């Protein structure tokens, strides 16, 4: 049968990539995949028509009969935000890019490997026979041809009934990431404890909102020695009391160890290696910037560490010395967002800091 539509589908694909005065939205289709709900977004272009405000731009009036509540907008809302518990997979590169940008993931690593998704399907030819599906197909045929009515149930498998397992492999972009929160809890941070905890807590909250399951958060604290904290007791992490000396080198060395998979001091029972090759790694360091140790050694560690990070955030609270502030900028200007801030837990100041950090 020749297709009456011809190459209309190709025309559509071209149209989506074109810049024109049409309105671009998307329609979402749900699929259960690997136990997770995957939403397939199909980009849709709409020709504008003169339309009512109350009806969300649809040509046809799709009101609801059950009274005053407005249903018009809820359809549109689904497109952009989506439910947080669901993973979104775009079918179109352009759409995917748009989504990544919305998620703030536009700076992900270029060499990051895609994740593989497997799905078991059935096909009419193959090697690995699926008996259940074969019997089903046989029954369907018997029902449809009237064989069943005449003879009742009888096992009679023909060639056309054979069904085989077929494994579909799908590549989806790897959206997972690790976020390391590093807090300076040395004696000099005594007065800034509340502020640093507030900022770290807010950033964690923001991450959970945005990425939910896809981001792993690791908690690090350091004085003149560094240790990882148990994520199940993160409330205690924010309440850590400041004392002891200050040295940055052990902390950054610890991050290196976590990436290399070598032994390090940890208060957490989970010791998972950070797979910096296949996922994004972000680092947030909150300190007053007074490093009491050898700066040269520190610089070398930073030089080794930075190529492995996707982005580093550095927040300096109060403090008098600019040494480290200058040094971290010198390592890699591109990869670091740095802010200096006062010790003021007011809404205005916190917002300013967060804006500057996360821009």
């Amino acid at each position, binding site marked *: 049968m020749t297709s009456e539509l011809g190459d209309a589908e190709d025309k559509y694909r071209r149209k989506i990539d074109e810049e024109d005065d049409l309105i671009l939205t998307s329609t979402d289709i749900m699929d259960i995949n690997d136990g997770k709900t995957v939403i397939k977004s199909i980009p*849709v272009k709409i020709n504008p028509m003169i339309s009512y405000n109350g009806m969300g731009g649809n*040509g046809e009036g799709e009101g609801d009969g059950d009274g005053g509540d407005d249903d018009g907008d809820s359809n549109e809302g689904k497109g952009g935000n989506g439910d947080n518990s669901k993973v979104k997979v775009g079918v179109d590169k352009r759409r995917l890019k748009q989504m990544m940008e919305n998620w703030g993931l536009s700076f992900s690593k270029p060499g990051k490997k895609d994740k593989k998704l497997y799905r078991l399907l059935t096909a009419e030819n193959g090697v690995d026979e699926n008996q259940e599906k074969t019997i089903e197909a046989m029954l369907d045929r018997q029902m449809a041809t009237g064989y069943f009515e005449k003879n009742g149930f009888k096992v009679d498998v023909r060639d056309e009934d054979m069904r085989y397992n077929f494994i579909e492999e799908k590549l989806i972009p790897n959206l997972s990431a690790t976020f390391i929160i590093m807090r300076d809890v040395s004696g000099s941070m005594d007065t800034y404890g509340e502020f640093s905890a507030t900022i770290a807590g807010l950033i964690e909250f923001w991450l959970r909102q945005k990425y939910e399951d896809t981001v792993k958060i690791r908690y690090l604290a350091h004085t003149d020695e560094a240790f990882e904290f148990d994520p199940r007791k993160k409330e205690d992490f924010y309440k850590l009391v400041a004392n002891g000396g200050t040295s940055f080198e052990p902390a950054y060395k610890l991050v290196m160890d976590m990436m290399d998979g070598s032994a390090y001091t940890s208060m957490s029972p989970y010791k998972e290696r950070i797979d910096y090759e296949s996922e994004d790694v972000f680092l947030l360091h909150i300190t007053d910037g007074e490093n009491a140790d050898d700066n040269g050694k520190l610089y070398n560690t930073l030089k080794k560490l930075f190529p492995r990070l996707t982005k580093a955030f550095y927040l300096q609270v109060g403090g008098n010395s600019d040494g480290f502030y200058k040094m971290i900028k010198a390592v890699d200007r591109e990869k670091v967002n740095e802010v200096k801030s006062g010790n003021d837990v007011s809404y205005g100041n916190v917002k300013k800091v967060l804006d500057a950090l996360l821009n």
Partner: protein
Amino acid sequence: MVKKSLEKLLVDGKEIKIIATHGSIIDEKYTMEARKIASFMINKLGLSFGNVEFKILDNEEFAEKVALYGTPLPSWEAGQEKIIQENNMKYRQGVLYEMVGHKFYDPIGKEEYTAVYINQNDTYDEVLSVMAHVYGHLHIEYNNRLAKSINSNANKHAYYRDRYREMESRLDVKTVEKMYDYSQTLSGLIDMFPDFHKSKKNDYYSKEETYPEEDIYDVYKFTLENVRFNPWEKELLEIVYDINQLMKGARIKIMHEGFATFVEDKYAEEVAKYDIGTAFKMRKGILQVADVLSPAQLPYYLGFRLFKDIEKRWDEGRHGLLYDLLSEEEKRSYMKKENKGLSEILEIVKSYTDWEFIFSYADLNFFKSLVKEIEEKTNMMIDNLYGGKYPEYIIDMIKAANSAKLDPNILRFQLLLETENYGPMVYVPKGSFKGDKLTLRQDLSFLKRYIGKLPEEEIESFEEQASQMFSLDNKYTAASLRRLSKMWKIPVELHTMDIEGNPLIIESDGSKISKSSEGEGPKFEE
């Protein structure tokens, strides 16, 4: 071979043919079943229709047919529709069981058929149910006054496709696509209610020269007549105009789906006499479609319920002036076996549209019971969602918050309003066109009909809601005006209102959009 022992199917003394095909092969089993069901429909229920060909299709073919139904040209829009439909079917969401296609002419048998597409993935019982459903649709297609006037034809569409492809090969795809997009914007301005506007022709003796001579509601046609297009542009616009006449079918949507479901239900009753298991499955399928309260399912829900109600009332003689004069007490015990339900329904289906149907047959009692049902359904839904998760007093609070106190009277008018308003009504006012500017004005005169009948305390909030809902001040409208202006090559202005209800003029000269608060605003008086 179809067995000859089956009686001939006669409609008005003429034999009709019914076949079911799978690809190019005739499917005997389904053909037999289809004929059996058709025989019941024609002889027992008194339906009438022409030749039918049931085509059993797989997902991809089905998606293509769905796309071609609404957008018969091989444009990007058709491709988009196909991809959406195909994915919907692949993941079994919003599954279409059947679709009644356009009529087509079979050159070998020299007869006209209606194509009906059935999804190959339907189960055997579903297919039977679907066939019964389809005969209801076909009856309306062959008998309803409005449906008959639409006259869409697959052969015509095939010719349009050929012309479109030729345009693409002679010019280039992008040029044709641009014009196609413009025509789609214009297609929102086709007059769907030509019988609603009272025509006020110019006085014969008047020497005043005005153009247009009366209010023009069909802006698409007005554009075709007054703008000088290239021949191919004009042809494309005419093609799209003709195709979009299909939109008028929206005016009988509730009746269409309601009647088809009603007929399907009747067939399930018949089946129950000899095969209770199948009948039960069919009934379940009907309830799955017609018992769900959502905007998309409203035509099924409302139409089915209303037809059932009418059947009962006319079977028991509970209608007419004399019945209305009785007291409530007498009404309850009233019974007069008339058995006129079915014939009354066939009469309704012949000549009514949704608006007339609801206006004259859905009385206050019907809406009272509907309101009750809606409340029960919402409460049940809340119980399903939150029951067991929260203590009962919280669930009661949710229920109380969700039970919008529906007034049956207002619900009735909301529905009527929806069935005569499928999008903004815009017209070119009489005598407004002088060649240098196209003036459009929004028509809201239908609102007056409802405001007059509302209780006084409701009027103010209704007007406030109306101006929020019916204002045309948005980006879609602005983009459309820009396109209209490019097509006309003169500025275009639209008289509407802002969301506070104040008059507003939106004007475009093809690139810029300007707004001013002068002007008269939309028209309210008839």
